[in-house]
């Protein structure tokens, strides 16, 4: 059944509409049991920073792995039995068919649990969920990625996707900052981006650091310094709330309209499928209506971030 066939109708689904017993990874919104995680194996763990690890996981069912597709910006629930599940952005490229990558910062119960996993361990995955970035709409435009700290995880899939489709987009600028050079994630990507002449990569750290000869300065300040022209440009930002706040101010100062600015939100989530109720921003649920929102959309919603 195609996605549009049902979603355009304002009606309830029935058992006849869904694929009984299947997970979201198998049947998307027509999952017979959207609470059912799909078993996956951790194939590789990358220690990104002292407290961030990336997990590359592969569905145990080859058919599911082969058939899995997602939009850049979409998220998934990664879980460990006995501990629980939490929502993370899928940050491997949509064209990557071998594995899904999630980056996890050690912070709460579930993330501590995830950090204790080793390769070959099993996890439960419920994905893909939510709405991704409108990358198709952005074709022919300049892209400006502004991210800080672990915020890079939410944008990595989108960056990789747009770089793969490089010819479809005009100028691409990546501005990425972290507290210290040690806290920079995806060093392997950064090296590659910096080596490419068709992207403008700016890496900054908050304060001088022994051995760091790159740029020093907070992301919003560096952004103002770079002063990208708003014309025909889309700005995409993600990072700690305080950074986002000042980045949005900087973008406004630079003349970006609300419709040109996108961000991806974080909320406490449980079900991930728009039912359990907690991740709402007014009438929108971050898990199904987001996590990607344009600033214009956010302006219409109650301020309960």
């Amino acid at each position, binding site marked *: 059944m195609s996605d549009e066939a049902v979603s355009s109708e304002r009606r309830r689904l029935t058992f006849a509409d869904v694929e009984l017993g299947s997970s979201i990874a198998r049947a998307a*919104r027509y999952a017979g049991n*959207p609470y059912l995680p799909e078993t996956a194996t951790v194939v590789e763990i990358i220690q990104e920073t002292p407290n961030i690890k990336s997990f590359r996981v592969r569905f145990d069912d080859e058919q599911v792995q082969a058939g899995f597709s997602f939009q850049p910006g979409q998220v998934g629930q990664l879980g460990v*039995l006995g501990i629980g599940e*939490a929502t993370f952005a899928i940050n491997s490229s949509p064209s990557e068919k071998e594995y899904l990558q999630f980056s996890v910062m050690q912070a709460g119960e579930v993330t501590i649990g995830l950090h204790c996993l080793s390769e070959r361990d099993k996890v439960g995955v419920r994905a893909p969920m939510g709405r991704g970035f409108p990358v198709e709409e952005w074709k022919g435009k300049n892209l400006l990625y502004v991210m800080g700290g672990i915020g890079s995880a939410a944008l990595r899939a989108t960056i990789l996707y747009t770089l793969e489709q490089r010819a479809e987009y005009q100028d691409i600028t990546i501005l990425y900052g972290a507290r210290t050079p040690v806290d920079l994630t995806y060093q392997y990507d950064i090296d590659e981006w910096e080596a490419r002449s068709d992207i403008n990569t700016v890496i900054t750290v908050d304060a001088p650091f022994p051995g760091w000869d790159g740029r020093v300065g907070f992301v919003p300040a560096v952004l103002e310094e770079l002063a990208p022209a708003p014309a025909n440009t889309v700005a995409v930002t993600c990072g700690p709330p305080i950074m986002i706040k000042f980045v949005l101010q900087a973008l406004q100062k630079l003349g970006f309209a609300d419709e040109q600015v996108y961000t991806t939100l974080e909320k*406490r989530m449980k*079900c991930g499928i728009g*039912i359990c109720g907690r991740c709402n921003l007014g009438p929108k649920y971050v898990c199904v209506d987001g996590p990607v929102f344009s600033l214009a959309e956010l302006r219409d919603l109650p301020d*309960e971030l």
Partner: protein
Amino acid sequence: MKFLARDQLPTLLADLSTAAEVWVPVKQQNGVVQFDRWAPDVDVELDVFLARQSPKENVFPQTETYLEYRYLMVCSAQRPEFTDQTREELRQLVESEGGEVVAEVPPVAQELLLVADVGGGSQGEPGLGSAAGMDDSAQIILGLRPCDARGLSQMDNVFGGYGGFYFDPYYNVRRNNTTIIAVTCRTPRSTCFCRALGGSPAGTEGVDVLMTEIEGGFAVEAVTPKGESLVERSVFEKAQPEVEESAVAAKQAAEAGVNVPFELDGVREGLKAGFDSPVWHDLAMRCISCGTCTYVCPSCYCFNINDEIVEGTGERFRCWDNCFNPMYTLETSGHNPRESKHARFRNRFSHKFWYYPDKYDSLLCSGCGRCIMYCPTHVDIREVLRTMSAETTAEKGEA
């Protein structure tokens, strides 16, 4: 229309209970009326106006298990040098028995738990652990009021993936197997406001069969096909013309007993316009931020999902949650988007009369008034809605 003589009620219940589990309001030892399983020695309590809780729990249990799994081995993480070796041994052990390690649970405290579920799910479903059995036995709920039934039908949209969202099989399997026999209200209370929300003490939304108390028994109307087949039973007599007349009179009398304390038009707009209004602080003053209103509500449906491990077996389950619970929105970083009491308070009313209608084309309140009655400080939803409706007018006035 059919007629059921009052003394035939036990016969009907006995008859129904052969095919399904029958739930009726029953006065408990402490005098509180709650829905309970019917058995021949159980007295049905139809005089008390509303059961303490609606039979929401019959389709949406307070605690419901999704997944079950068990642990095969628990070993200490205090000596990490042995961890890899132990894991490997466990794998070999389990694989030689034809099972599969599906997950390894990291140290919660000082222990490393290795989790395994041997064999497939109990229902032969693919995936992790076994999906706990979904309860698909038939049940009949008799004696709830039309507002309770309407509350259930209001929840149907969110669990039914209305508008192209996700379908909840646990809820729907129960809902499909539930037959609702509602009884028209006889003596509505001052807290009732179903009529303000387009309902009625004889409303039929979500009802399969409606019984109206009249002299000597009940006037019985089938509302849905499910109800049609139910009233085919021989215990129901063909109704004489005066039965219908008495039923109409009884319904009218009940209608007259329900106040219309506010205008629904303008509530949604008022909530929207008044989102940042300081009025919320005043309204929330006497709220103590517990969750009583949401748990006695026939249509509040928010829930939480947890994993718990007890003696070698684990479960992932959902349990009711509510927007007054700090853990409801608390993020890992420690940030809570709804930190203050008034923000949590505001969410409940906004959800019922603004967010939910926007998303699911239905109100999320049937006007039963339980939240007014059982709130420890009697926070009055009617007062909140009246006050917020006035917010629009105020805004308009300024504009």
